[in-house]
């Protein structure tokens, strides 16, 4: 079944659960470092290893970050809330319970407005945001593909165990209709921007700092009651969020149309082909036996603290984007390209370093975006700084470089040849605007193109471009094009 057919009969309802790993220095309940890439089991202690006798103590910045996220999502902040134990056995979880929150989340009842590609604003209602801890990491040994299935044993590294997580859960997203996958993607993208703007996490999905579960069900048009949902776990890129939602819509519709029933189960998403496959069936055997964590005392954020955090909230990404679009004078489409390229921050920093907005955008969205795209890397990871781009813009403005030379300077910087001025000096890239040096080349161009010269003498000044081009060619691009044009017109008496 194709997507349009599915949508002709059914109305999708989605629930999105996003886990954000906070960028705190230490874990949620102990003082172990959270630095990525450390040696296995080198960032563990009795508490995050779940050793007998160990106890948790809450990281204040973890709570503060949770409140900031809650406020930015327009949530109410609990005046009093507790942690709870979620009991289930799994080897990556050292205590065999996860310290989480249950019926008393720190933030609840909020919303996030997301902008769709056509500019429409869709409001996603937020059920809750709560604090919890991450699990350790297992590697599966002996299986064909390093996957859990068929492995002979597993190896566990608990460096990640106990890193603070904020789980953000939406209320059922209804009414998105055919745009449900787009809404899902736009929501996660907006949430990621928000988290980054708050400075509580880098929210890199590729590094697992932000992970998304997509819950989806279909109901026939006009019916109130929700259908049975599937829960697709660990959908870890924006594109995948959209694809997973789309795939599940079509899969559900196919099953339902064939008179089948949807099984409530977890599903795994496969990046390679955008499909999902069945995981664990969620029967009622899973009983987490939540109860208030007796080793921790309640969190009761003082009103003054909450208001202080509210007052210090940064500009919301959506509003900031609208402001920048206005300041930079971009169309919706151009702004969208800037966003898609991840160029907002580099452009802002280049402008801050002194470059005009249009120039800053030109370089980041042109040459640099192309290179990032070719190498499959992030724009921010290119080996050039906004300061260096701004310096190139300044050299152009001063007339010391033209566009073509500037491009070569950028290349030089990217190739690790040093600062823009060093590349200019090393490659001898300065623009030639000295009349005596240019005179011979101009004379040669006029002599080589008598017909064009005649046209110009007759007043067809527009033809001068061809002669300028000829001069640029003989000077290998280093001539100051504006000066060349003036010289030609002078010599031909057309000035």
């Amino acid at each position, binding site marked *: 079944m194709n997507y349009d057919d599915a949508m002709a009969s059914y109305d999708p309802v989605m629930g999105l659960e996003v886990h954000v790993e906070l960028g*705190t*220095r*230490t874990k949620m309940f*102990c*003082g*172990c*470092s959270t630095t990525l890439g450390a*040696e*296995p*089991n*080198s*960032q*563990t*202690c*009795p508490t995050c*290893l779940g*050793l007998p006798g160990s106890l948790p*103590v*809450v*990281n*204040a*910045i*973890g*709570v503060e970050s949770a409140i900031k996220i809650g406020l930015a999502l327009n949530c109410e902040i609990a005046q*009093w809330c*507790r942690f709870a134990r979620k009991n289930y*056995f*799994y*080897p990556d979880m050292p205590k065999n319970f996860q310290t989480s929150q249950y019926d008393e989340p720190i933030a609840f009842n909020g919303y996030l407005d997301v902008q769709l590609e056509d500019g429409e604003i869709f409001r996603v209602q937020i059920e809750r945001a709560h604090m919890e801890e991450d699990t350790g990491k*297992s*590697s*599966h*040994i002996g299986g064909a593909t390093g*996957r*859990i*299935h068929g*492995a*002979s*044993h*597993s*190896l*566990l*590294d*608990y460096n990640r165990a106990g890193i603070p997580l904020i789980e953000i859960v939406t209320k059922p997203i209804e009414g998105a209709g055919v745009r449900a996958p787009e809404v899902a993607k736009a929501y996660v993208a907006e949430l990621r921007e928000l988290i980054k703007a708050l400075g509580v996490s880098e929210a890199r999905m590729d590094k697992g700092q932000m992970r998304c579960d997509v819950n989806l069900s279909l109901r026939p048009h006009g019916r109130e009651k929700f259908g049975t949902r599937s829960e697709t776990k660990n959908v870890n890129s924006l594109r995948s969020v959209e694809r997973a939602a789309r795939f599940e819509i079509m899969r559900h519709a196919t099953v339902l149309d064939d008179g089948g029933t949807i099984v409530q189960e977890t599903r*795994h998403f496969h990046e390679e082909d955008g499909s999902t496959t069945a*995981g*664990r069936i969620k029967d009622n*055997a899973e*009983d987490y036996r939540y*109860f*208030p964590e*007796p080793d*921790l*005392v*309640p*969190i*009761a*954020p003082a009103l003054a603290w909450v208001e202080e955090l509210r007052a210090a909230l940064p500009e919301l990404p959506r509003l900031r984007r609208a402001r920048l679009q206005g300041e930079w004078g971009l169309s919706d489409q151009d702004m969208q390209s800037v966003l898609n390229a991840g160029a907002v921050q580099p452009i802002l920093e280049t402008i801050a370093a002194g470059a005009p907005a249009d120039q800053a955008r030109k370089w980041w969205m042109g040459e640099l975006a192309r290179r990032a795209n070719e190498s499959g890397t992030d724009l921010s990871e290119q080996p050039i700084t906004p300061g260096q781009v701004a310096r190139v813009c300044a050299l152009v403005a001063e007339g010391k470089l033209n566009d073509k030379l500037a491009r070569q300077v950028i290349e030089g910087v990217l190739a690790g040849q040093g600062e823009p001025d060093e590349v200019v000096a090393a490659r001898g890239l300065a623009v030639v605007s000295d009349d005596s040096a240019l005179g011979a080349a101009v004379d040669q161009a006029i002599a080589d193109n008598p017909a064009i010269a005649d046209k110009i003498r007759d007043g067809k000044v527009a033809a001068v471009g061809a002669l300028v081009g000829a001069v640029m060619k003989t000077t290998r691009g280093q001539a100051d094009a504006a000066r060349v044009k003036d010289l030609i017109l002078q010599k031909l008496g057309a000035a």
Partner: protein
Amino acid sequence: MPGITREEVAHLARLSRLELQAEELDHFAEQLDVIIGAVARVSEVAGLDVPPTSHPLPLTNVMRADEVRPSLTPEQALSGAPAAEEQRFRVPQILGED
């Protein structure tokens, strides 16, 4: 009050990862039925409008600064491991998620 059946005890044992012998299960089922019958008396207060106490002391907001404290060395962390490999805890194959 409702008691507890052998099947329920078997289910609870699975949920709490306890491999029980058949005789053990019989014996526990019998004893737990008596114990639950006795402790079920607390439900007398279920309908009362009384707040539950989960912490004996009225403390709130006990938090620590986000400052790194020394971790164990990997050798210490792994010192009690029944099996270790490549500086990691080696555990039997994990079922369930895939």
